[in-house]
């Protein structure tokens, strides 16, 4: 099976979020970059498991400039066979999806598996767009994925439960928690990653449909009001009368 795993480069979860240039740009100073956890922990690991069990290859693809290469190497260290980077700094999900489709359309992938969203822009957009651009079925928010011959069975999360769906390959699916367990790369993987192919391809020139114009931080919270642990009637009164939340 040939699996494609799109990966994003995102700030580490402990990063201080700040902006520059009149709040028009994310401040990248001092930021540690990681592979988007949903892409890495769930999509990539599940793709590796499927290939380990049934043979095939896992290709990771990133749409970005050379600053993404270290996180792409991390994906290779985890076990992906090869990597592709489409050389453009994308300004929205539409560009990312269109560029991935431009690369992938004639490559005969059986499956495209990616995280349900990034922890940076929280879009949940690329998977569905990609499915449309590649004219493939799309299963979003999958927490389980099994493949049997040319048919996949997935659990698609819906509010308060899930739906078991069956679909013929090829397909696009977005992965959420439950699909696989996070792996830690070992020394051998890290060494092997250095010599695995990372092919840089030119962008096809997709144009953005949206523009980020300004960023901001939430208003700071006022100080916490401490309530005597012996007096929970008082907390209930405050929640009712002051906060009006019950």
């Amino acid at each position: 099976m040939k699996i494609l795993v799109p990966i994003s480069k995102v700030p580490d979860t402990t990063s201080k979020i700040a902006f520059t240039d009149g709040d028009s740009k994310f401040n990248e100073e001092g930021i540690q970059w990681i592979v988007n956890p949903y892409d890495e922990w769930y999509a990539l690991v599940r793709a590796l498991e499927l290939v380990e069990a049934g043979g095939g290859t896992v290709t990771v693809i990133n749409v970005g400039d050379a600053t993404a290469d270290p996180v792409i190497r991390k994906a290779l260290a985890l076990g992906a066979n090869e990597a592709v980077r489409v050389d453009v700094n994308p300004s929205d999900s539409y560009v990312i999806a269109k560029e991935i489709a431009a690369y992938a359309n004639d490559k005969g992938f059986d499956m495209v598996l990616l995280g349900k969203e990034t922890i940076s822009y929280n879009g949940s957009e690329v998977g569905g767009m990609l499915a449309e651009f590649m004219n493939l079925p799309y299963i979003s928010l999958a927490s389980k994925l099994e493949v049997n011959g040319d048919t996949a069975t997935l659990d698609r999360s819906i509010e308060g439960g899930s739906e078991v769906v069956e679909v013929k390959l090829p397909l696009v699916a977005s992965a959420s928690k439950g699909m696989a367990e996070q792996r830690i790369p070992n020394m051998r993987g890290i060494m092997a990653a250095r010599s695995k192919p990372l092919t840089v391809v030119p962008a096809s020139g997709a144009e953005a449909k949206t523009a980020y114009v300004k960023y901001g931080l939430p208003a700071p919270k006022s100080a916490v009001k401490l309530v005597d642990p012996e007096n929970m009637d008082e907390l209930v009164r405050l929640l009712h009368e002051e906060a009006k939340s019950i």
Partner: protein
Amino acid sequence: MSVLIVVDTKNGEVKKSSLEAAQYGASVAASLGGEAVALTLNANNAEVLGTVGVNKVLNVTDASVSASDPQKVVAAIVAAANKVGAKVVVFAHDSTGKAVAPRLSAKSGAGLVTNVTSLPNLASGFVVSKNVFSGKAHADVNILSDEKIVSILPNAFGVKAGEGSASVEAFSVDVSGINSGITVKEVKGGNSKVVPLPEAELVVSAGRGLKGPENWGMVEEMAEILGATTACSRPVADIGWRPHHEHVGQTGVAIRPNLYIAIGISGAIQHLAGVNGSKVIVVINKDPEAPFFKAADYGVVGDAFEVVPRLNEAFRKFKAANG
């Protein structure tokens, strides 16, 4: 210029997140001077949309047109948008919006913004705010294309139903040519009475401070008294004390209820990211230095095993007195 709102249903009833999206769409239509039209998927109570400002409903009555098969829903939306001349399509950013809106964007070339938390500012384009970095920040995004799609963050606006009424007409769309090869085999759990986390207004959540899954009885009891939904921190789901779908935070479900009660949770940055949009936060923790207190509105420094039963008692008394 009319606005089309995509409204999904659960067991034939309009979803709460869709009702909120419909209200949003009606406001957008009013500021554009157009009509608010809802496209409902197999709704039995589509009239309710009138109460949030929708003028007209096109109700699809074909069970195969569902979010399980996004291509069919996209076909229905394109047909409906053409019929009513809609240039703006509104979704709720729930499981339906996530499955369908991106596909529609790619098909139509309309720019999409998800997780939207504001009405559009029309002064310099079509600019909406959205949450980014899992709620640690927000961004203003301009949609450049003529046609626009927005998918709004559940619970960001709330629903204020009024008096209006909407005309409902059946809308048929031919999806026989679409074969995506998707079949739904089984639906698990979707029918429970508990409000799903992203839609919940009251959430009771607990973390590793509770020591073990056998101690969740008092958490569930609180949720039961309040009619709240239960949640948990990531390690608690990872070690299997609680189901994965309860995990909230940056790598779990992002929520913004009216009230979030956190019990024995330290308040790590990744946890806060997914819950700091909550309107009121109550933290119960025995460590006065726990970082969560900095993000809390009300705090109780104490042992959960003593405080929670006492609080449950107080909630019960309150409920008995206030109904």
